[in-house]
């Protein structure tokens, strides 16, 4: 059942590094992260990799496998030919700390720039009443496991360091959409989405949607509707005002 696979893993720290070749045992049903763990236990004890749940729920083990952003724990070895050399490298958009571990603090900084959920002052805990159909849109976005692969793959920042200060990235533009579509959120998020968080940079190439391990339709369901809301607002402020006033009438 088992076989020897050829792995090429990026190793290095402090801005320097190289691809290192390994030959490593693979057993039935294993995923790439299992093989990385076997490398740690048998050949490279200090090989750095982030991981946590190993069940596709925490979004820690994001890496680039043969150049594609993937979760190591959800990439089965059976999707490769046994003779294939599998190349594993760190996420390209973020600075490498060591081996497969990158500095993802950019994302936490962006998270803090998005104004938080803002409920009306007069609704007390326990009094919230929402229909399932009204929460489902935002619920889709809350499936996000923050693997940051959409941030990694987005061409606005993947090879354009200069855009980072002005662009929140798909994950956090989606967060704005999530809050904007929350039945009880009263903050005005449209103008800031465009002016402060860089929604206009997105030209809907859907790279983010394609890599999302949770299959969230980031572009179609979050970014495009958000762009439409921004446009509506710009062209017709009265429509926006009306929608805010009547939003919670049932």
């Amino acid at each position, binding site marked *: 059942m088992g076989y020897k696979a050829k792995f090429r893993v990026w190793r290095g720290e402090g801005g320097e590094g190289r691809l290192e070749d390994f030959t490593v045992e693979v057993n039935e049903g294993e995923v790439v992260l299992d093989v990385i763990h076997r490398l740690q236990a048998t050949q490279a*004890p200090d090989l750095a990799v982030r991981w946590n749940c190993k069940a596709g729920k925490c979004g820690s083990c994001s890496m680039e496998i043969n150049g594609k952003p993937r979760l190591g724990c959800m990439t089965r070895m059976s999707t490769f030919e046994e003779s294939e050399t599998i190349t594993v490298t760190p996420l390209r958009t973020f600075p490498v700390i060591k081996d497969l571990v990158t500095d993802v603090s950019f994302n936490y900084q962006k998270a803090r720039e998005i104004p938080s959920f803002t409920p009306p002052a007069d609704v007390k805990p326990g009094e919230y009443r929402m229909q399932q159909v009204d929460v489902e849109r935002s619920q889709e976005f809350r499936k996000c496991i923050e693997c940051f692969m959409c941030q990694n793959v987005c061409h606005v920042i993947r090879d354009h360091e200069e855009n980072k200060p002005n662009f929140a990235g798909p994950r956090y533009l989606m967060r704005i959409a999530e809050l904007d579509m929350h039945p009880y959120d009263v903050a005005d998020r449209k103008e800031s989405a465009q002016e402060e968080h860089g929604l206009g940079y997105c030209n809907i190439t859907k790279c983010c949607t394609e890599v999302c391990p949770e299959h969230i339709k980031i572009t179609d369901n979050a970014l495009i509707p958000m762009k439409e809301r921004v446009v509506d607002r710009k062209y017709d402020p009265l429509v926006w005002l009306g929608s805010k006033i009547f939003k919670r009438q049932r």
Partner: protein
Amino acid sequence: MERHEYDVVVIGAGGAGLRAAIEARQQGKRTAIVCKSLFGKAHTVMAEGGAAAAMGNVNSSDNWMVHFRDTMRGGKFLNNWRMAELHAKEAPDRVWELEAWGALFDRTKDGKISQRNFGGHEYPRLAHVGDRTGLELIRTLQQRVVALQQEDEKLHGDPEAYIKVFAECTVTRLLKDGDAISGAFGYWRETGDFIVFDAPAVVLATGGIGKSYVVTSNSWEYTGDGHALALLAGARLINMEFIQFHPTGMVWPPSVRGILVTESVRGDGGVLRNSEGRRFMFDYIPDVFKDKYATTEEEADRWYDDQANNRRPPELLPRDEVARAINAEVKAGRGSPQGGVFLDVSTRLPAAEITRRLPSMHHQFKELADVDITKEPMQVGPTCHYVMGGVEVDADTGAASVPGLFAAGEVSGGMHGSNRLGGNSLSDLLVFGRRAGAGAAAYVDGLAKRPAVTGLDEAQTEALAPLERSGGENPYEVHHELQRTMNDLVGIIRKSEEISEALQVIEKLKERAKNTASSGSRIYNPGWHLAIDLRNMLLVSECVAKAALLREESRGGHTRDDYPGMSAEWRRRLLVCSAKPDGTSITVEEDVQPSMRGDLISLFERSELEKYLTEEELAEYDAAVKES
């Protein structure tokens, strides 16, 4: 060395840790959150089914008293009753509060928070979001922390003025000034540099110990850090013999063995079958639950639509019962091809309904096992899931016996007795996370002066030792042997000889662990990190094995092949673990379980209590009932 001064340091950023930190910050305390992973990645994200809270949204007969009774029954009456009481009373407020912080739970038709059925809960009680409730909870708390930081930025010009997250930072020692806590010592995983926190109060919220077992639903973080830190600081652990083996973990392929299959599958209609196609749980209803569970498939199936006139399906017995039943079926040769049993929801619900209610299970089986759960059954078997035991705390404040030390969530002990009900952990960590945060804040308010940090040199020497040795033991090998030992010898079914054998192995592993060598630099070096974690896993494993050897009965998450019965005498006894002053080994002593308060014990029928209590306790019950 990098040093920081805080009022409260919370170790762990899962649900309990974040809720504690939020509370401490809301009470005006300068609060640090220290966690081994990135912010938002904690093990809580893996909780699937929901948070149990008697809101009565789906069945209005539910209330805190019913929840309290269910919790005590689930724990086979070994629970700290005051914790079970506070938990049942406060869980609804804690869930509603999350909603005000932005959580989006699934809804009922009238727009309230929907609640689902779960094992051991009399009414539909679990607030949920599909089968990813833990993620919703962690994200909501994470975003609440961010909201507080945004507030602080407005007020003080610094988002981290009052609450700061130290991510990928591991604490290896608690520091003391005399008897009291004075801070914590640790290292940054990224750089290997040391860090010291000067703080009069520390809240442990480090979760569990599953990484001492091979087959587990737990993540790498679950190395018993908080349990061990508490022991080494002089605190006591209780109930360490009780470990929950979740009945349904994946069994195939081997690399995913142990990954959790949510109890919601059964709550929403899934059934367990053996290789003969029999719904075997009907054969395993224990006497104490006889009148509460259906005896025929027809009645069990009717219950999903009409709970008033039918009894629950036995698939929804508490987890310990179901896990033992699966174990017995597999041992009797009636298991599935890969050594589990069949869990089938495909013949019970329409495909669209399955993908709506159980999206992540559908995804998980499809991606990892090539199984489409809308078309075929899953294969499942028990997996090490949760430790009921932990730091002995004061129910109201989360305070441990060491001044300045607090604990909440899985690392604390008592709340769940000998077995935790599904859904009671998310509510536990909210209720007691908040209480521990408040307890720590009040403790700091009462101090005349700040304690001084001591013991830094020793802590530093200890942490560096594996890097300074060359040619020593491979920490990965020591870890694997510990996992195999605990799995095989102190697992779901235990006997005296095997536990004794495990203890001998643990002694040898302790020696080997002292001699581990980690190659490479201090920068993000997992081999070094594991060598440090081994100390904790070994201490905790010794507690589990020693307590398991002493408790000569079977109850909840502790099943002794050589003592299969439940004993009322043993119910009155708590096993308390503490470390010898030099930290080299564990001693276990017996303590008496305090009697339940009169108004609480009166919530039960005498006929039920007779199954659990001694004659002496029943006399107390009679007196309490007469008085009320």
